[in-house]
C-alpha cells in the first residue's frame, strides 16, 4: 500500500506539473517540425515586444496571346508571409497589351472583422484586371498566437467570410493555404473572441476555468488509478501463486522525484 501511495503521488505530481510547464510556452510541441516563426506584425500583439516591418510585394506578368502568364507574388520577407500563386489565365488580360500588375501589401485600414480574431496581418491584394480563375494564397502565421482555423476574406466595406483552408503540405503547421477567386483583403484567424492573451497567460475557451480544473483533476485520478489497479492485480496474482508470510512484506521502492 505504501508503494501504491507513492505511485499515486508521483503520477499526480508529474501530471499536474506538465500542464503548468506547457502553458508557459506557445502552443504546440510538434516534435520540432514547427519551429517558432519570426512573424513580422504590422500591429504587434501584446505578446510581441518588438517586430520588424512586414514586407509587401509588387510584380508584373507578361501577357502572351491574350493570356496572363502564370507565376507567384511573394512578400519581401525572409520567409514570405503572404504568397499568391496562380495558373495561366488566372487574370483577365489587360487592354492595351500591357503587363498584368499585382500587389500584395499589409494594411492597417480594412473592414471591421466582427466576431473574428485575426492572428496575421491583413493583406490587401490588388491587380490591374479582375481575377477570373481560382488561385492559391498561402499565409504564414506566428507560433506565438493560437493557430488560425481559416483564411478570411473581405471586399472593401464588405463582411469577412471564411474560405476553405488547409494546412500547407510544405510545413504543415505554421502556414495556411486557401483558394481564392477574387482580390481583396485577406487574413488568417478564427471565429469568436476579440482579445489577445497576455504573455504566459492561460486562455481558457469561453472563459470557463472551472471545467478545465475539474477535467484536470479527473485526468489525474484516472492516470494514477490505472497503474494502481495494475499493481494490485499483479500482487493479487503473485499472492495467489505463492503465499507470502505477513511478517515479510516486500520492501517499498522509492518514489520518483523524491529527494
Amino acid at each position, binding site marked *: 500500500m505504501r508503494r501504491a501511495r507513492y505511485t499515486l503521488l508521483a503520477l499526480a505530481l*508529474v501530471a499536474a506539473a*506538465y500542464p503548468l510547464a506547457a502553458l*508557459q510556452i506557445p502552443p504546440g510541441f510538434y*516534435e520540432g517540425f514547427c519551429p517558432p516563426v519570426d512573424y513580422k506584425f504590422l500591429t504587434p500583439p501584446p505578446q510581441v515586444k518588438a517586430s520588424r516591418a512586414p514586407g509587401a510585394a509588387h510584380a508584373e506578368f507578361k501577357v502572351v496571346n491574350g493570356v496572363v502568364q502564370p507565376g507567384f507574388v511573394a512578400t519581401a520577407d525572409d520567409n514570405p508571409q503572404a504568397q499568391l500563386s496562380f495558373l495561366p489565365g488566372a487574370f483577365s488580360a489587360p487592354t492595351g497589351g500591357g503587363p498584368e500588375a499585382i500587389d500584395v501589401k499589409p494594411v492597417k485600414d480594412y473592414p471591421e472583422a466582427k466576431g473574428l480574431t485575426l492572428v496575421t496581418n491583413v493583406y490587401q491584394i490588388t491587380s490591374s484586371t479582375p481575377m477570373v480563375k481560382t488561385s492559391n494564397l498561402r499565409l504564414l502565421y506566428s507560433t506565438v498566437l493560437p493557430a488560425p482555423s481559416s483564411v478570411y476574406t473581405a471586399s472593401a466595406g464588405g463582411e469577412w467570410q471564411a474560405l476553405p483552408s488547409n494546412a500547407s503540405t510544405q510545413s*504543415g503547421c505554421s502556414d495556411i493555404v486557401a483558394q481564392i477567386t477574387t482580390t481583396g483583403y485577406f487574413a488568417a484567424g478564427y471565429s469568436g473572441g476579440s482579445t489577445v492573451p497576455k504573455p504566459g497567460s492561460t486562455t481558457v*475557451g469561453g472563459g470557463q476555468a472551472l471545467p478545465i480544473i475539474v477535467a484536470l483533476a479527473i485526468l489525474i485520478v484516472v492516470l494514477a488509478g490505472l497503474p494502481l489497479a495494475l499493481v494490485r492485480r499483479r500482487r493479487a496474482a503473485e499472492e495467489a501463486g505463492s503465499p507470502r508470510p505477513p511478517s515479510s512484506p516486500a520492501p517499498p521502492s522509492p518514489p520518483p522525484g523524491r529527494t
Partner: protein
Amino acid sequence: MARLAVVTVLVLSLEWTRALVERSTGPIPTIAIGGLALSLVAIGWRPEALGLSRTHLLPKLLGGLAIAAVLLLPAAVRWQGAPLLPPPLAISAIAISVGEELAFRGALFAALEAAFGPLAAVLGSSLIFAFGHVLSHPPLFLLAVLAAGLVLGTWRWAARDLVGPIVGHTLADLAL
C-alpha cells in the same frame, strides 16, 4: 554501464542528427526516418525489459489515452481549431513518437534502471529526453519537454509498461 553509455550516445546522436538533417532537407521524410532509426535502438532487448507485454492490454491502452489527455490539456484549453496535420506529417509524427518511446522509455530506461535503479531511470531518461531535443526545440520549450518526459517515464515505472507512453505520445503528437 557500457550498455547504458552506448544506448545514451546512440539515442542522443540519432535525435541530434535528425534535427540537423531536418534543417536542410525539411521535415519529410527526415522525421519518419529518424523515428525508424530510434526504434532500432530497442533491438536486442527482451520485450518485457522494454515494458512491452500483451498482459493487461486494455488498461494499458486506457492509460495511453489518459497520458495523451494530460499532454494535450494545455493545447486543448487554447485550441481554436487549427488545421489537421497533412498525411505525410501525420505518418512522420507516428514514426517519431513510437521511435522515441522505444529508445528513451524502452532501451534507455531499461539500461538506467539496471545500472542505477528506478528513480535514476525516471529522472535520467527524462533529462536525456529533454537534452535530445535541444537542437529541434527552442530553449523555452525544453522545460515542457522535460515535464512530458517525467509523465511518460513515471508511467513507465509505475505500471512497468511502455504501451501507454507509446499510445499517449503518438496521440499527443498527432493532435498538437
